């Protein structure tokens, strides 16, 4: 049996990878432990959020599916940071944990290029450093031209609760026991990472009157550029807000020795995410804080679990009971699922090329948590790029590599391959140095052309984009020609730059009616022109360094005077350009200048 592309793992990375490959016309196989876990959301019931919401839009712009499926199934929608500048706005949806995976599975099953089998992959077969096949736990081998590993938290997964450490994937699923060892044998460096999830509470046992209600926005939004909203404003599900109490903190402090993380029961614990500490971490590290915010989020319309965001823990069950009951509104709450921590093997992402192909094995790609990231959106973004690039490789074309000044996905992948991770990586707006260019509102203008070029965006979608671009240009040109009377005849373009003036004040003066999104885009481009220019200038500097390529066969041992840490890092990462080299931590400006001097000689000789 042979497929062009095999994807191992049906999570958010796997789904995008398999769809990208199949939609580009390649016969693709998805190997998953169980169809029931395809596009499963084992942790928070939401898609999007700061920076992540922009990633969902980028996925949509490139021809991926996360945004479209989320639009169809979401139960609440919010525009975050709507009171701040346009650069940092981002959508966040409460997703339905039943309907989202169901819709995604439908997409896969209806695609004639996709086959799905329920198996566990335990090894990969490599010949002359080229991928040949996967080997299932049954011993069966399936051949492929390219392989994409999107194993999530499944490699050597352990569930931690108090003193216990059980071999298991999330929600009691079956982990892969040997795959990571076999990857290690092939030369991959492994990391042991950890993440956690909070308890789930029975909705009917919560006294919501003691909490604060948080509703969705009063405006309809969609992640996708191609469809209208499916939901109605009135029918959105609310979330609720509550806080930890002094009693909660006391319970945690008294029982700290029973926590998996603090108890000292376990050796060689994985490294947890800095941005997502457990509640015991928060109480210990921020001891002077009186209370911590907790969100109560519905998981689905089809069952009663409420997700207690902010309360992830590895305490034993009896302590969790006490902790939950100390929260306002949850005095009599019934815990349906206890919180747990999970540890898993990941590979060192510095061993990847910017295309997400591994440096060691030709034709092997990895995406998602296996690369040390965390989050559904981060996984999906990588899955899409891995799927596209695996397909492009089979087609004999150059890979799609997004730059830091054109997408968050580019920032994410560049960070992974250049800096690597120590703890699970989450995208933050602060990681994007050119974020004024990377807005949620212009993801299509930034990226749709690439989606079209690789064949995931069709002619209709592309024409829509071209029209939008033309209209935006026309609006701006027209504004320049409109004179504002009584205002010393300044033109509308300059007038719009004033704080108190918005496009709404001016749109009546335009010769024709334009779309709301086009007007918004033109307004942002005019109002923030100075800052956009400044950011573009910075980005230009980066591009110049990016274009200065480092020869693939460069021998760092021959360059005397490099600091030893810089030499080790450069040898390990083998950056493709000066730009990438300059972002490696431990490589200082003086090392870059030495490298530059060496290169001058190298090219002169």
């Amino acid at each position, binding site marked *: 049996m042979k497929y062009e592309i095999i994807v191992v793992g049906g999570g958010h990375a796997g789904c995008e990878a398999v769809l990208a490959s199949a939609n580009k016309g390649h016969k693709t196989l998805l190997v998953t432990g169980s169809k029931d876990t395809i596009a499963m959301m084992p942790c928070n019931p939401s898609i999007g959020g*700061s920076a992540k919401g922009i990633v969902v839009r980028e996925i949509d712009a490139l021809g991926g599916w996360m945004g479209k499926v989320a639009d169809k199934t979401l139960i609440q929608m919010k525009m975050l940071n709507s009171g701040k*500048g346009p650069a940092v706005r981002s959508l966040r949806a409460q997703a339905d944990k039943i309907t989202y995976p169901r819709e995604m599975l439908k997409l896969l099953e209806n695609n004639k290029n996709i086959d799905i089998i329920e198996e566990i992959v335990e090894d990969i077969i490599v010949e002359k450093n080229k991928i040949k096949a996967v080997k299932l736990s049954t011993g069966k081998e399936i051949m492929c031209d390219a392989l994409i590993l999107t194993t999530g938290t499944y490699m050597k997964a352990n569930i931690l609760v108090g003193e216990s450490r059980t071999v298991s994937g999330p929600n009691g699923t079956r982990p892969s026991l040997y795959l990571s060892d076999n990857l290690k044998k092939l030369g991959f460096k492994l990391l042991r990472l950890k993440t956690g999830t909070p308890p789930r509470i029975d909705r009917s046992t919560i006294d919501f009157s003691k909490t604060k209600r948080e509703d969705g926005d009063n405006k309809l939004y969609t992640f996708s550029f191609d469809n209208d909203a499916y939901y109605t404003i009135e029918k959105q599900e609310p979330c609720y807000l509550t806080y930890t109490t002094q009693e909660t903190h006391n319970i945690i402090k008294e029982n700290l020795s029973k926590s998996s993380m603090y108890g000292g029961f376990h050796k060689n614990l994985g490294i947890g995410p800095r941005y997502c500490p457990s509640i015991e971490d928060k109480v210990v590290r921020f001891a002077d804080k009186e209370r911590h915010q907790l969100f109560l989020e519905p998981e689905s319309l089809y069952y009663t679990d409420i997700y207690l965001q902010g309360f*992830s823990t590895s305490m034993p069950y009896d302590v969790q009971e006490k902790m939950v009951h100390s929260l306002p509104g949850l005095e009599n709450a019934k815990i349906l699922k206890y919180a747990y921590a999970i540890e898993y093997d990941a590979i060192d992402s510095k061993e990847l090329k910017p295309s997400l192909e591994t440096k060691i094995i030709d034709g092997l790609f990895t995406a998602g948590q296996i690369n040390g990231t965390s989050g559904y959106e981060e996984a999906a973004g990588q899955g899409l790029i891995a799927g596209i690039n695996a397909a492009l490789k089979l087609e004999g074309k150059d890979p799609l590599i997004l730059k830091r000044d054109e997408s968050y996905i580019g920032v994410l992948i560049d960070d992974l391959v250049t800096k690597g991770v120590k703890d699970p990586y989450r995208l933050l707006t602060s990681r994007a140095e050119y974020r004024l260019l990377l807005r949620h509102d212009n993801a299509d203008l930034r990226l749709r052309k690439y989606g079209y070029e690789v064949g995931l965006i069709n002619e209709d979608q592309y024409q829509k984009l071209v029209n939008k671009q033309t209209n935006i240009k026309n609006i701006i040109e027209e504004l320049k020609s409109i004179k504002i009377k009584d205002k010393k005849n300044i033109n509308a373009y300059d007038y719009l730059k004033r704080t108190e003036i918005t496009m709404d004040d001016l749109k009546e003066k335009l010769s024709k009616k334009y779309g709301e999104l086009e007007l918004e885009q033109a307004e942002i481009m005019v109002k923030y022109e100075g800052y956009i220019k400044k950011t573009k200038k910075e980005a230009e500097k980066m591009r110049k360094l990016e274009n200065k390529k480092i020869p693939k066969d460069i021998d760092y041992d021959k360059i005397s005077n490099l600091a030893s840490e810089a030499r080790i890092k450069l040898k390990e990462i083998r950056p493709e350009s000066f730009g990438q080299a300059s972002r490696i931590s431990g490589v200082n400006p003086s090392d870059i200048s030495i490298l530059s001097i060496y290169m001058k000689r190298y090219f002169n000789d």
Partner: protein
Amino acid sequence: MNDTICAISTAIGIGAISIVRVSGSKSINIVNKIFDRDLNNKKSHTINYGHIIENNEIVDEVMITIMKAPKTFTREDIVEINCHGSIVNTNKILELLLNNGARLAEPGEFTKRAFLNGRIDLIEAESVMDMINSKTENARKLAINGIDGKISNLIKKIINRLIKVNANIEVNIDYPEYEDIEIITKKEIEELSKYINKELSKLLNESENGKIIKEGINTLILGKPNVGKSSILNKLLNEEKAIVTDIAGTTRDIIEGQIRVNGILLNIIDTAGIRKTNDKVEKIGVEKSLKLIESADLIILVFNNNELLTDEDLELLNKTKDKKRIIVVNKMDLKNKIDFKKFGCEKIVKISALHEIDELKNEISDIFKLNELNNKDFTYLSNSRQISLIKKAINVSKNLEQALKKEVPIDILEIDIKEICEILNEIIGESYDEKLIDTLFSNFCLGK
């Protein structure tokens, strides 16, 4: 980079002892060839007595310091020969080294190696260069301070404050739903911008003083013919040691010579024949004299006590009225004809240059607050690259103030704050982004 270099490290012909420094992988090997004892097995950081020899004849009796890599200034093997200080002797030793395989170092090459080998950062390298080039005690102090990292520390302090605010802004963006995290307000950014402006302006101001100390005060002695400009200059030259009488280089072409007055350096601007007894300011032409006035930090305007003020004098007074100047009335030993009232309430230094010019010297010290500078802690940026970067940062902070007035959203204002950070980091050569993320995580409590 792989050559072994050598140079005379002390000023030629001044001291009783000179130091010839050799740096590079072959330095011990090369010095060994001209030394009468074996240095190969000497321990690092030792000083060794012996003789420099040529064809078995003793050239000089010396002490040789051996410092092996990496704990040296350049992180290479360094050998320093402490020899007797005469020019002939020192040059002879240098010549021997060159004949035995060392190459003459380019100006600043030791420092460049120290920088490239990661021994010092850019700001330190610049300071060392300044120290090498420093000609007065004040300038040396200034250079040493740069090495101590005093400037770096001050700038780091400013950067840290900026980063803290930015980290908070970032948290507000990345975790908008966390209501109990402090929200950065425009008022705080306004305060921040005032703080940056104040600190950087202070630094700039002090730095420009620092530049004066290091590079000297461009001084123009002006006056119509026969007021005694040349006697003032000659008196200054006689009483103070003229350091350089001819400086090459494009920007300094107009400098006639340098004089040290009470420890501060005066660059005397050549007014084309000022030393000739027959001074002819009129010959320079109005345009050139205007240009000269423009380029001067200090103008010594000389008048003759024995003559009435002419239109020409009044024109000079008028042309220099916006500059830092000292009005000197010379020839006080002659009969008074000049009308002192014409000078208004400006201070007049009355001298007789043939006898005594102390009053002028004191006035120069006063006008540049030399005493103050002498006693002060020096925290100056000491070269023009750094100064121009600070100016750039101040401009951005003015931008920030403007933007604050225009109600620009905070996350956009952050672009300006970040730019200031980047400029400041450029001065001390550190990277911004990782620091920001570290601050973000260590100061705020967030998560699922």
